[in-house]
């Protein structure tokens, strides 16, 4: 009997590994590949110690791992390179220089300079316009071709240690347009708590709406949260995301999983506007006045934040504390970003 048949036959009996869960089998697969964390390894060794079925499955996997090594090596003809060069000549190909990044326009220097605002909303208002966060399992990488940099960047938080991913993200965040970050999380409330904590650690003053506070207290995993920020620098956002990415690889409870960066589209601008949050214009003369209430007595600190109430609670932007913040925000500082962050639990 051919070896390949013998090897795979040993695994085929459907009842043979019936006691092993898919998770166990997946762990054993990773064990054979030598690709697991210390914790997973410990769990796998425990499983192997306890289960003869696991040991049998492992033995089979180990044999199978060598299956492809039996396959013979193939070669292309020596003249293949010449043929490729001929094709290059025939098609008139040449290395295409990437299109230059849009020049980073210098923002007018405003008197009073920097102000940062962070607004957090909670609720389902965003759901209708939520962009598709691609199922990771559907992901097939795109070719590295000389097209312009994509306007939609998708990545896993765990990948935020990779220099090329970080650079891609940095470039996207430094675009002029308001940016939208869609964060896929496992637990909505834990994620917003952690996100707010990170904002505070980065010296942002934060104002939270009563409804948002109440929602957080309920600790519901499926709640979607929205954060709006103004005046934050791209490097600061990047740093915070990397911090969350580090936790994604560790024992973080918030469950930050995926990240999608897009331009803030008109629909979501409108949604924000409906919440009482008008994006500040870059030109002072175009600056939107969010409300007609009298100017608040708030000081205008370098950074502060406001949390919106729920969309189901009337016009949240007109909550007094939110109103006060909006009226007191400073004009955008040069390089300051307008950022919408949406934290969406996987089950939402």
């Amino acid at each position, binding site marked *: 009997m051919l070896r390949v*048949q013998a090897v795979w*036959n040993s695994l085929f009996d459907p009842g043979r590994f019936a006691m092993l869960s*898919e998770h166990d*089998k997946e762990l054993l697969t990773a064990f054979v*590949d030598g690709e697991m964390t210390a914790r997973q390894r410990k769990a796998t060794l425990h499983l192997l110690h306890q289960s003869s079925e696991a040991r049998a499955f492992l033995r089979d996997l180990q044999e199978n791992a060598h*299956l492809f090594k039996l396959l013979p090596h193939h070669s292309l003809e020596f003249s293949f390179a010449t043929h490729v060069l001929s*094709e*290059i000549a025939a098609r008139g*190909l040449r290395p295409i220089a990437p299109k230059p990044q849009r020049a980073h326009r210098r923002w007018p220097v405003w008197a009073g300079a920097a102000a940062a605002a962070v607004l957090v909303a909670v609720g389902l208002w965003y759901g209708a316009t939520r962009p598709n966060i691609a199922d990771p399992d559907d992901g097939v990488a795109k070719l590295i*071709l000389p097209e312009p940099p994509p306007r939609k960047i998708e990545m896993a938080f765990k990948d935020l240690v990779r220099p090329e991913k970080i650079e891609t993200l940095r470039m996207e965040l430094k675009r002029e347009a308001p940016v939208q970050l869609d964060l896929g999380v496992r637990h909505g409330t834990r994620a917003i708590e952690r996100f707010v904590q990170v904002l505070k650690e980065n010296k942002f003053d934060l104002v939270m709406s009563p409804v948002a506070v109440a929602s957080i207290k309920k600790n519901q995993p499926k709640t979607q949260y929205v954060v709006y920020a103004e005046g934050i620098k791209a490097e600061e956002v990047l740093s915070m995301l990397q911090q969350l990415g580090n936790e994604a690889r560790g024992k973080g409870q918030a469950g930050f999983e995926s990240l999608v960066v897009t331009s803030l589209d008109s629909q979501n601008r409108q949604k924000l506007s409906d919440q009482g949050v008008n994006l500040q214009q870059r030109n002072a003369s175009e600056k939107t006045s969010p409300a007609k209430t009298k100017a608040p007595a708030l000081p205008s600190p370098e950074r502060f934040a406001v949390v919106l109430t729920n969309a189901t609670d009337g016009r949240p932007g007109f909550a007094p504390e939110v109103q006060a913040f909006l009226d007191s925000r400073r004009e955008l500082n040069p390089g300051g970003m307008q950022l919408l962050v949406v934290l969406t639990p996987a089950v939402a």
Partner: protein
Amino acid sequence: MSADDYGLIASCLAGKTQAFGELVTRYQDRLFNTVIRMVGNSEDARDVVQEAFLNAYQSLHSFKGDSLFFTWLYRIAVNTAISYRRKRKVLLRLHLGAEESGGIDPADSSEESRPGHALELAEEERRVHDALSRLSPEHRAVLVMKDLEGQKYEDMAEILDVPIGTIRSRLHRARLELRDILAKDEEDLPEKGSD
């Protein structure tokens, strides 16, 4: 991969196309061996490798040197193979024989010169090859990258642009699927498997 790759790339970018020929010669077989397992036959594999090199040539400016040149090239080739496969909608190549494909020749090792050995090897390869061709492009890609190329999960995740967890589960499912296909094939074989 050698530091010399960078010199060749620089030469290419300076307009010396011949330098690219050297890069092709260096990596053509490694890519070909991967791609042939992904697309199912040597003719398609040759086309895919060629397209991958042409894509790479046009994209040389985008190679920033933050990964190995081969890794970058490999990524282009794997993705070209996946998209090629989808475009062609080649679903099954159940009876891909060595003589038919023109590329799945048995290894010409002189050590295994006993009668029948080469035939067995060819048959074995054909079976694995056929089974592979019946997997989805994503499953085939991870199997080839891991079990043939010995790539790390992390590199595979980067190449396919998916999380590592996806690589692990996809690989697991791919192995189970391949197992089922091979086992079913054996069931369908009349008496051949017992000789």
